[in-house]
C-alpha cells in the first residue's frame, strides 16, 4: 500500500466501493479530521460543524459505492462535506437560529466577525449552486487538497470554477 495518505485514501475508497469492509474503519478515520476541519472553517461554530461533519461523513460512506476511481478521493469527500455545510447553513438561516457564538456582542471586533461570517455563509451558499466538479476544484484549491488535475489543466479548471462562482454570487446577491 502507498505511503502517500491521499493515494492511500483513493485506493481505500476503491476497495470500499468494491465491497471490502476491511477498508471501512480506515476510511472513516482518515476522513473524519479533514471533514470536521472544513465544516469548522465554513460554519464557524463547533457544534454545528460537528453535526454537519457527521452528516457529511455518513453521506460520503453511504455514497462510497458510487466513488469514481479516476477522481481523487479527498476533494470528492470535501465536495460532499461543503454541500452538507451549505445545506446546514441554509437550514440554520431558515430557522433563524442564533448560535451561541453569534450572541450579540459589542465592539468593532464582533461586527467585523459577524460581517465575515455572513460573507462566508453567502460564499458557502454560492458554492452550493455550482456543479460538483467546480465545487471540488475550488475546495481543493482553497483547502489545499489534491485534485486529479495539475498544472495548466488545474489552473483553467479553477479559473472557470471561480468565474462561475462569481456569476452565481452576482445572481444571488446582486454584487460584483
Amino acid at each position, binding site marked *: 500500500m502507498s505511503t502517500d495518505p491521499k493515494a492511500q485514501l483513493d485506493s481505500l475508497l476503491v476497495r*470500499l466501493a468494491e465491497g471490502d469492509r476491511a477498508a471501512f474503519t480506515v476510511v472513516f478515520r482518515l476522513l473524519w479530521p479533514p471533514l*470536521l476541519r472544513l465544516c469548522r472553517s465554513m460554519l464557524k461554530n463547533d457544534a454545528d460543524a460537528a453535526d454537519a*461533519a457527521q452528516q457529511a461523513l*455518513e453521506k460520503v*460512506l*453511504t455514497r*462510497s459505492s458510487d466513488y469514481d476511481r479516476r477522481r481523487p478521493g479527498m476533494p470528492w469527500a470535501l465536495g460532499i462535506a461543503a454541500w452538507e455545510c451549505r445545506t446546514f447553513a441554509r437550514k440554520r438561516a431558515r430557522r433563524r437560529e442564533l448560535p451561541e457564538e453569534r450572541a450579540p456582542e459589542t465592539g468593532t471586533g464582533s461586527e467585523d466577525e459577524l460581517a465575515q461570517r455572513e460573507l462566508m455563509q453567502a460564499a458557502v451558499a454560492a458554492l452550493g449552486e455550482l456543479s460538483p466538479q467546480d465545487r471540488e476544484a475550488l475546495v481543493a484549491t482553497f483547502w489545499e487538497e489534491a485534485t486529479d488535475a495539475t498544472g495548466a489543466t488545474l489552473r483553467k479548471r479553477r479559473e472557470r470554477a471561480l468565474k462561475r462562482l462569481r456569476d452565481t454570487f452576482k445572481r444571488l446577491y446582486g454584487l460584483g
Partner: protein
Amino acid sequence: MDSVDLSQLEHRARRKYEWARARRALLGFAPSLGVVTIAALANKHPMSAVTFGAAMFVVGAGLLWYGREIRRAVLPGLAMGILPLALALCANHMGHACMGDHCMMLCVPACSLGGLGAGVGISIIGVRWKQSWPFWAGATALTLLTGAMGCSCVGYSGVAGLAVGYGVGLMWGFAQRRLSSSP
C-alpha cells in the same frame, strides 16, 4: 471533537453503507426480474419458474451486495443461464420429437445441451479473467438457478440434466484451456 461519539457515528455510518449497498444491489439486479417474468409466462409450470426466479434474484442481489470478486460472477452467471433457459422454453413449446415409433420429450436434452454451453462459457470467462473459487461458485449458482427456471418443465430431471450438462461443459472448458495453455 470530544463531544462526538465516534464509535457510534461509525456504527451508524456502517449501517447506512450496508443499506446503500443493498439498495444498489436490488436496483442493479432488478432487470433480471424481466427474465423471470418471461420465463414464468412462457413456462407451463409458472410456479416453479417463479420459485427458481426468486432464488436467482436473491442470490444475484446478494452477490452484488457482498461485492468484491464474487460480484463479477453476476453478469456471466445470468447471461450464461439464459442459454439453457431459452433452449428449455423453446423445447417446452415444441413438446416432443418422434423418430419412427419412438417419441421423446425435448426438454431434458435441451437443458443438458444448454447446460453444456453455459458450462463452457463460464469456464472460458473464468479462466480468461483468472478468477478464484468465489467467482466459480457464484457463477455456477446463478447459471443453474437461471437455467432451472426453464428446465423445471419436466420436473427435477430437467434440472438434473442442466446440472450434468453444466458440469461436463465446465470440465471440458477447463481441459481445453489447459491443453491450449500447455507448451
